[in-house]
């Protein structure tokens, strides 16, 4: 007993010393002042975007991008270029958004992470679809899926993009397939994309004349979008619900939903 304790004690002391040394030996990743400044611009831009101040957000992302380019921070360049494309898209400048995305997708000099390229490709696909270029949208979404191999969190977004393309082509079955797959992937990952999946599924159900199911999906999407406070999404949910009510013969409720959607549009808050 005595001998055992004599052995255990030095072992414990040795372990504690090693633990202490390993803790002290931990080296914090050093970041330059410019990189910290770029991060600060990026964070301020994020907050501006969340408040709907898109012009300010764009200017701040530009500042962050400029600094990242100057110190050749490849991740920062990709992140801020994607963000600028997104802001331009929200501000109704699809051509500018596409030019930002092209600068990433067609860059021969720098090698970006596949996750960033997947994000750029899926955004390109959605932009093409907005301009009724279904072929272009299909090409980019396949490209996005190819980039999104491992460690990629964009699977649900790509599913939703595919469902959107199918809906554009009035292919209700395919749209329903991708939107349901997207919903199951996004349920615990991203409320924004989950609501998107629900909305797409509702539209597919409407195409299939299943207004009752469409109404339920639209109402669920509405609850999610309200919890996130996204006016445009809430408006779209209400319009979908109005369509479902109309198909169900509830003219009064349909009118109410349209009236509510109209009020949100009149508020002009994006």
């Amino acid at each position, binding site marked *: 007993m005595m001998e055992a304790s004599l052995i255990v004690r030095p072992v414990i002391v040795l372990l504690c010393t090693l633990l202490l040394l390993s803790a002290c030996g931990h080296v914090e990743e050093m970041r330059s002042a410019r990189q910290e400044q770029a991060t600060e611009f990026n964070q301020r831009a*994020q907050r501006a975007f969340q408040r709907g101040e898109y012009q300010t957000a764009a200017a701040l992302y530009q500042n962050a991008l400029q600094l990242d380019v100057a110190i050749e921070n490849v991740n920062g360049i990709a992140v*801020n270029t994607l*963000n600028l494309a*997104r802001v331009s898209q929200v501000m109704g400048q699809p051509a500018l958004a596409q030019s930002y995305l092209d600068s990433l997708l067609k860059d021969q000099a720098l090698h970006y992470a596949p996750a960033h390229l997947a994000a750029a490709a899926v955004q390109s696909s*959605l932009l093409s679809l907005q301009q009724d270029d279904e072929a272009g949208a299909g090409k980019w979404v396949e490209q996005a899926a190819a980039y999104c191999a491992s460690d990629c969190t964009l699977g649900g977004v790509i*599913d939703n993009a595919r469902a959107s393309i199918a809906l554009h082509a009035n292919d209700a079955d395919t749209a329903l397939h991708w939107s349901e797959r997207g919903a199951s992937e996004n349920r615990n990952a991203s409320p*924004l994309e989950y609501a998107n999946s629900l909305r797409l599924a509702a539209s597919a159900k409407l195409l299939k004349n299943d207004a009752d199911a469409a109404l339920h999906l639209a109402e669920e999407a509405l609850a999610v979008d309200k919890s996130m406070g996204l006016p445009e999404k809430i408006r779209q949910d209400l*319009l979908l619900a109005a*369509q479902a009510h109309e198909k169900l013969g509830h003219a009064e409720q349909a009118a109410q939903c349209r009236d509510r959607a109209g009020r949100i549009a009149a508020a002009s808050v994006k």
Partner: protein
Amino acid sequence: MKLSTYNQRLLTIEKRTRRFMLGAVGVMLLVLLMIAIQQDYFHRSTTIYFFTPNAQGLSKGMAVKFVGFKVGSVQDVSMQPNATVRVKVALDDEYVHLIGQDAKARLIKEALVGESVVEIIPGSQQVKQVTHNSVLAFERGQDASTVVENLAAQLQPILGDIHQITSSINNPNGDVQQTLKNLNQATGAFRETVHQFTQLGASSNQKLDGAYGKFDKALDRVNSSLETLDKSIPKLVEKADSTLGNVQSATSDIKKMTSESATEVPALVRNANALVQDGQDTLGGVRKSWLLNGLFPQPEEQALPVDGYVPPKTLP
């Protein structure tokens, strides 16, 4: 295990415990000694007093300074039966010989922002130095708010004067308005007279006397107007003089105040900057320390979420 070995181990443990206890007692004594030094228990001091009508701005522990050096502290602030406030001050013995019985205690603020201190204003060198239980005279120094109050008090009569002058100018029955009216009438009459005089000169010399009469009257009125003007101008000049005097004294006060604070404000700003920088450095250091760095992850550049939804054509 043998009994002798066991006893030996017990003895060793006892010896170690004793050493530990002695060490602990030693450390405790050292700490007590340091506290005593910090609290000035080994410092010889002389107690003096001063009295004030109220204790505003005075507190126990407040620094007492003499020509910019800390020479003691306020030990106690207590109210007396006659509702005055007695302030007990402990002065370091090494400075007592510099402070005469006729020295004054003054409550001042060293900077625009910050704590007040009691400043000892030296008396004459010939007078005997303060002794134990001496009583000093007390006065309150002017702080920023008092200076501003004084300034406001000085500006008030100036504004009053300006108001009086403008109302006097605007008053239709006032001197200035009446003078202007008289002048107006006089020039009207003069113009008429000249006109008549021309007519008279052309037609007849008979009416010349009447014209001269009117001309005389007009000149009289001009004279009376000028007299009134003569009377009112000195009054106006006097008022303007007093106004200018007030403005001058206010300006000198402002100049004094700004020159007094000119040296303090930049230092204050520099100190605040240094303080903020120190705070940032400390926080940075704490964040980087291995015990806490897990709690403060380094911020990263964030990407906005991709919105994978394009409304179908059927939705407006």
